[in-house]
């Protein structure tokens, strides 16, 4: 019997009886899925950062995936009350102009938080992050950064501890007015070093 597909809906753990397979040797299993199915979320990179002023990921975007999910967790920085930001990279350098973004959110005190910039030097993840034992985390999606569209979009939910305050949350979104194919990202804070954090990047395959 050729093992051609494992259907998640029918997945069972256990041992396939020897009599039900033509060859028990792993090398004889030749019909595994040839391509990543459309819509699958595939982990591309995972990196722990520490003691650095800027974190670049190069050769990240490609025609293999259309959209990308980036999850940052346990993010800490040396300076209190700083702004986590990021830029997209072309094949040669980070892009430092043409970012348009808006953000809305709240503090645990109930106060609304809103912000935004046009023609900025970078995209916003979250501002006013506290530098203490409580970390910042975010969940971001980048939409077709490798395409030639006139703008590159992102959406992001970020939260954690606010400087001098309690918890805070902000949802940001925006576009980079640039039709160049992007190949990577650069993450940093606007004052001092990033001291800790884990960054995972997943690819989402288009149709």
């Amino acid at each position, binding site marked *: 019997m050729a093992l051609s597909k494992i259907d998640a809906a029918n997945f069972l753990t256990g041992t396939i009886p020897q009599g039900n397979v033509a060859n028990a040797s792993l090398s004889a299993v030749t019909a595994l899925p040839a391509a990543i199915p459309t819509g699958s979320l595939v982990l*591309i*990179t995972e*990196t722990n*950062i520490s*003691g*650095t*002023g*800027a*974190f*670049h*990921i*190069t*050769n*990240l975007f490609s025609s293999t995936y259309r959209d990308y999910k980036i999850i940052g967790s346990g993010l800490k920085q040396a*300076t*209190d*009350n*700083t*702004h986590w930001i990021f830029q997209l990279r072309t094949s040669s350098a980070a892009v*430092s102009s043409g970012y348009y973004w808006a953000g809305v959110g709240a503090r645990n005190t109930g106060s*609304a938080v809103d*912000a935004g910039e046009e023609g900025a*030097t*970078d995209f916003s993840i979250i*501002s*006013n992050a506290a530098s203490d034992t409580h970390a910042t985390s975010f969940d971001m999606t980048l939409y077709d950064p490798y395409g030639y569209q006139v703008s590159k979009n992102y959406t992001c939910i970020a939260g954690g501890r606010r400087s*001098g305050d309690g918890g805070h949350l902000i949802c940001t979104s925006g576009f980079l007015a640039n039709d160049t194919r992007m190949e*990577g990202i650069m993450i*940093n804070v*606007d*004052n*001092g*070093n990033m001291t800790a954090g884990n960054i995972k*990047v997943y690819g989402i395959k288009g149709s």
Partner: protein
Amino acid sequence: MTKITILNAATKELITRDMTAEEQAEFDARQVSQFDTAMKNLRNKRNQLLIDTDFHALSDNTMSADMTTYRQELRDITNGITTVEQANAVVFPTKP
């Protein structure tokens, strides 16, 4: 010298090294001072409080003296602030 971390996603090569002079200059140019951040936060809060009472300034409304004073105090709230500590210690006037 500030460190820079670069991950090549294709080769999985991860390096952390000192920034070049050019990278350091770019990094320095992007740094925002704590004072600028504190003042930006202060102005954002002040501006929202002014917006909240803007309707008192409509032409078909006569603004009370208390409200006029309150709004002027908000406009003046950044005067004389020169340190982060002063910016963070500002007490906003009570809305009449």
